[in-house]
């Protein structure tokens, strides 16, 4: 038999962080995410990212991880960013080791708020931006709301796991509920956005109702549709 029996191919694979897997909220949150798009997740291949995870040196741990993901219709196929002991244990469980860095495309990291920062009152703190957000800039408020008291230029991208408030013209892209929170909203005092998105549901500039351009609005997700309401 001639020719190559093994050939290269490129696939899109989902990645789960090992540290998230260990959190008690992981399963209910994953279940919720799968429920939103069951067909998307059905039998979907998953790679476990072991960056910074000290555990997972025993085969049994990988078997357990596989079962957890299986319960949510996902199929664990391999690991990445693993230490050599972890690679061996994973191989024992029949998992492949993927080259690192595949999850992060080669682009500058967005400016990020301090993770999970809580104020003295115990409330989750929001990220406040006071300077104009210029074209080409990315701002991401991880696990928090994002409040901007300046204009957001075309070509800029603002993201938050929570709500986004822009007290100025919103001319760039705004992605609220970046982590899948369907209750997140976008508020802006002037809607001229290139794109607005909540939990992955988005509208581009062309789809924004022309009569609402330039107005003070709030955008929410209602029955899986983005709705824009005048403030």
């Amino acid at each position: 038999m001639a020719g190559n029996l093994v050939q290269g191919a490129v696939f899109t694979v989902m990645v789960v962080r090992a540290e998230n897997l260990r959190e008690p909220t992981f399963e209910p949150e994953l279940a919720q995410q799968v429920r939103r798009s069951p067909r998307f997740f059905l039998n979907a291949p998953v790679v476990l990212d072991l960056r910074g995870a000290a555990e997972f040196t025993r085969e049994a741990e990988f078997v357990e991880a596989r079962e957890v993901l299986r319960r949510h219709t996902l199929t664990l196929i391999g690991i990445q960013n693993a230490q050599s002991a972890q690679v061996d244990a994973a191989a024992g469980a029949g998992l492949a080791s993927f080259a690192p860095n595949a999850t992060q495309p080669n682009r500058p990291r967005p400016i990020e708020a301090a993770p999970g920062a809580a104020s003295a009152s115990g409330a989750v703190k929001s990220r406040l931006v006071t300077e104009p957000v210029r074209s080409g800039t990315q701002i991401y408020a991880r696990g928090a709301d994002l409040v901007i008291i300046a204009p957001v230029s075309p070509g800029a991208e603002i993201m938050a796991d929570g709500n986004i408030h822009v007290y100025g013209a919103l001319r760039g892209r705004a992605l609220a509920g970046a982590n899948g929170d369907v209750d997140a909203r976008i508020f802006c005092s002037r809607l001229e956005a290139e794109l607005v998105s909540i939990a992955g549901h988005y509208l581009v500039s062309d789809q924004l109702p022309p009569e609402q351009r330039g107005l003070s609005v709030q955008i929410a997700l209602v029955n899986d549709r983005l709705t824009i309401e005048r403030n």
Partner: protein
Amino acid sequence: MAKVIVLTSGKGGVGKTTSAAAIAAGLALRGNRTVVIDFDVGLRNLDLIMGCERRVVFDFINVINGDAKLNQALIKDKRSDNLYIFPTSQTRDKDALKRDGVERVLDELKDNFDYIVCDSPAGIEHGAITALYFADSAIITTNPEVSSVRDSDRIIGILASKSKRAEHNMEPVDVHLLLTRYSLERVKKGEMLSVEDVKEILSIPLLGVIPESESVLRASNTGTPVVFDQESPAGRAYHDAVARFLGEQREMRFLKSERRSFFRALLGRA
């Protein structure tokens, strides 16, 4: 203390070199010792605009590399005793702009000049970043059209994040808007953004508006910065811009009778 001013825009062809020449000459005519440096390595043009192309022996890159002394490379302007031109190399590329070498040359110039005007290349790559890195002030040269405004916005963001002042948590670079090639006629017809539109998007103070003018083209082709032409509207507008840069109050000219603008029409607003 000498001040480093960068003329930058992101976009090419908006009038950076013309404006650098005019602003430098304007500063010199007001009695400030001024040098204008061409950072556009490989696409040397400033010497042509300044009309000194036949006197170039050594250049910026020679001085950075230590192959020539500063006073061997600086060319004294024939029209003003306070004005010097520092041409760049046409045969090298932007990689020859080593940051530490540039800093050393700028430090040496600071001892001899009041203003160091840096003419940046277009783009947001190494050449443009090096030109703006050491700036104390930036003059953002912008045409009244959407792509130029967006690129200017990007450059303002880079000044706020990648300049030396930003990296060392110093007072931020002082940023000014210079709107060039402005045509009131075309604004009226809705073919161009108005001053107000551009100011609103970029939200930085306006240093001046230079009207589209044949005198600018003529000045470039004859190698005479347009400020030497006291009759032309563009020359007067550059003089005003220089005066404002130095802290004087001047009324904006050439801005009368604006009507519904292109940008507002585009956004469906009255």
